[in-house]
């Protein structure tokens, strides 16, 4: 077992984990963050996408110990003060989901995409979401939602929006992950 300290959706945790434990399993089984899901075992589907220090990662391809000292944002941490993140709102408005299983990962990836390129065209959105599979929507409304959110989100809103240290007095102690 290895001790880790990690901040997830603004709450700090200290846990002992098996070195082989995947971040997604740590989130789901240890923290009950079941909003993040597992869709494959080859990192192709992207359903498990979360943000690690503000940037998207497939949490099935990251070990929990690699998150030590870092900050994780999941789909459950996006809405603030009861208000949906603009990307969540856009997915709802554009009917960008059906069964909704890919949706958490898709939304997390879409936010990261806009952090890199805040004014993408359709092709840039399609390529930016290439690592996230959806079986229901044919992607058309997902693309529409991301383009819609791009108009509504301020540039650079991605990683900065998620940083929680600035809102807390005590900084998160660094673990062994640097």
């Amino acid at each position: 077992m290895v001790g880790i300290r990690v901040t997830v959706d603004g709450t700090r945790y200290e846990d002992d984990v098996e070195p082989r434990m995947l971040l997604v399993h740590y989130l789901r089984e240890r923290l009950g963050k079941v909003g993040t899901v597992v869709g494959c075992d080859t990192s192709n589907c992207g359903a498990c996408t979360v943000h690690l220090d503000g940037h998207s990662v497939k949490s099935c391809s990251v070990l929990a110990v690699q998150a030590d000292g870092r900050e994780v944002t999941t789909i459950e941490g996006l809405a603030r003060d009861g208000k949906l993140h603009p990307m969540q709102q856009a997915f709802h408005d554009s009917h960008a989901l059906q069964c909704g299983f890919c949706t958490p990962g898709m939304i997390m990836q879409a936010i990261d995409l806009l952090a890199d390129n805040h004014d993408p065209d359709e092709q840039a959105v399609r390529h930016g979401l290439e690592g996230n599979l959806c079986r229901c929507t044919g992607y058309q409304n997902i693309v529409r939602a991301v383009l819609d959110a791009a108009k509504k989100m301020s540039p650079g809103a991605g990683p900065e929006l998620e940083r929680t240290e600035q809102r807390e007095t005590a900084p998160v102690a660094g673990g062994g992950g640097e």
Partner: protein
Amino acid sequence: MTATVERPGREIGKARRRKEDARLITGRTRWTDNLQLPGMLHMAILRSAAAHARITHIDASAARRVPGVHAVFTGADLAGEQGSLPCAWPVTPDMKAPQHPSLAVDTVRFAGDAVAVVVARSAYLAADALEAIDVDYEDLPVVLDMEAALAGGSPLVHPDLGTNRNALWVFDSGEAGTGGDVEQALSDSEVVVKRRFRQQRLIPAFMEPRSVLVDPTGEQLTIWSATQIPHVLRVMLALTLGIPEHKLRVIAPDVGGGFGGKLQLTPEEVLTLLVARRLGKPVKYTESRSDSMVSAHHGRDQIQDLTISASKDGTITGLKVELMADMGAYLGLVTPGVPILGAFMFNAIYKIPAYRFACTNVFTNKTWTDAYRGAGRPEATFGIERMMDELAAELGMDPMQLRRKNWITHEEFPFTTVCGLTYDSGNYEAATARAMELFGYDALREEQRQRRERNDPVQLGIGISTFTEMCGLAPSRVLGSLSYGAGGWEHGAVRMLPTGKVEVVTGSSAHGQGHETAFSQIIADRLGVPFEDIEVLHGDTLVSQKGMDTYGSRSLAVGGMAALKAADKVIEKARPIAAHMLECGEDDLEWADGKFTVRGTSNAKSIAEVALAVFAAHDLPDGVEPNLDSEATYDPENFSFPHGTHLCAAEVDTETGAVRLRSYVAVDDVGVVVNPLIVEGQVHGGLAQGIAQALFEEAVHDETGTLVTGTLADYLVPSAADLPSFTLDRTESPATTNPLGVKGVGEAGTIASTPAVVNAVVDAVRHLGVRDVEMPCSPRRVWQAINQGGTQ
């Protein structure tokens, strides 16, 4: 077919944002794998790597010693209680149905067959312990090819059946009296075109892997499962395992897609139940994607030999269909019936005077097949729409002109087809005219001509699919005539709460379709209550006691009608109470906008006021029960027949074989639309899956029977970057067979799009001598077809 169509009210036709979204976009979901129960154990399954082998020895002793492992079970341990997984569709009286154990006892028959299960305190430990199980196999000869399987002397998948042929199912219009004799038609015709098409094997690849949790504590065994069919599952579990049905409760919580792939009683469900019952503890099994790819049923997999005949002016005179359909190693719930559903769709929208369909179902040592989005109908639609293009090429006619010449005109409805179905409504001319306008058909034909003339390395092809489908499964008497083991009705209930809020219960179990929104809309209009005041409940046999679940584009056309009928009963129950409250006769009341009004006055009582009066029950008419709640069961009198015209423009790079979809226009007629947003979403997703069959996806087995496309890295589910944006529009020919005029939309896109795309690819390179490209039309296959100047 007497129902009159009611025009859209306040909610019907509105692009309501979905109620379901709130939990799905915030991660507040209830996937089966999210559930944790006290004392819960985890199951893992050891699967055979061999496609056909005798199990000579299993040593599980080391696995049993792994700390944290509670039990290991082999087929021998569960043989006495696992029964045989059921097939509910014995298509012919002499159909061969093999034993289908959930856990192989002495023989494995496909690579992926389950041979042992481990139950441990964590999923990680259970997976570890699988590695410690030692199985000895003695290889048996593998049967993979359908034609070889039917040849004399072939090894047998099930030696006790004495054959690899599961069934031969025939429909002949001459014999049925619905049309002429096809052999006569073929021999009398001026033009005869024969083709062989292959429907490759597909994997449904729903995004949520299957998961099941069984709680054996308490009086009822509770089963949570990522299933499309909680009600069917309950009955089938009872029948298969001999558990009294009233001791079972099945819950389908949030379910992440199905596409037919979760229309099954699975070995995994049976095994989880059996081990939970043995151990007296809740047990959960969640499959990995790799497990899912090899063990969840596959779809399609047919060889189609088609012969079409016509006169020189293009009038079709006959169609002969000879199919081989791969069952895989076993039969699932409706495996042998899936290709048979296609029998009624090969004639499509055309007036075909003579027709014969013969399907041979074949066992092979591969994952068993069953329903996948469209189930039999995409295969048939592909066959006929490809043949229309081939016949047009043979005749030197424009393929749209050939279709026009043969389709049923809108004045001819209702029209009884050569296989005996009565199409109630449609307007193929209108949908086609709109599609051609949006597509720019003539301009694209001109560009195609120019590219051919200048020998452009990138050639343009135009693909057409003027399709119909039979949806709203299904009239029970028709299912009975096809030897299906159940009915096709649906159940619904409406409960009026004292505060005027409404619970709608449906037996149609949603897994992404948007039932909660669409059913709220139709009931809001019917009861005159706000959309927000309605809660739609489904997917739990405790809440929704009866149902036939969700498949075959049936939810709205069948389930929606049941809910509507229940709402009508609520209104009728409320009427005498309202009359009593308003001190008038029932005949003096008018029902509109959610309230009873005394004719000619402003005196009125809303349904909510009546509901409150019923709750108090202080002053009801004598003999009236204080209850407005109602239920209803709806059995459709006919199928519904959505149709549409899909046009695809594809650019084919003749130097690389790469295909790029330049534009795709889909004009669908699904009857009256309750929610255009949901309908468009269904079409988009359906198109993606149909295009995926045309261009990307194929379940490939090597010569040993190993699935070599067993992960999402090898099996190409398309991403956003692989697909274009689609142009959609609709025409509206209301169904005349249900009171809302709705037809269903879940399968349309998938059924229509595959032939549209392949027709476009072939059309692009037909002048180079190509007359078919086998699916998926990968760059390699297209390049080979061009360079060998023929079929690939």
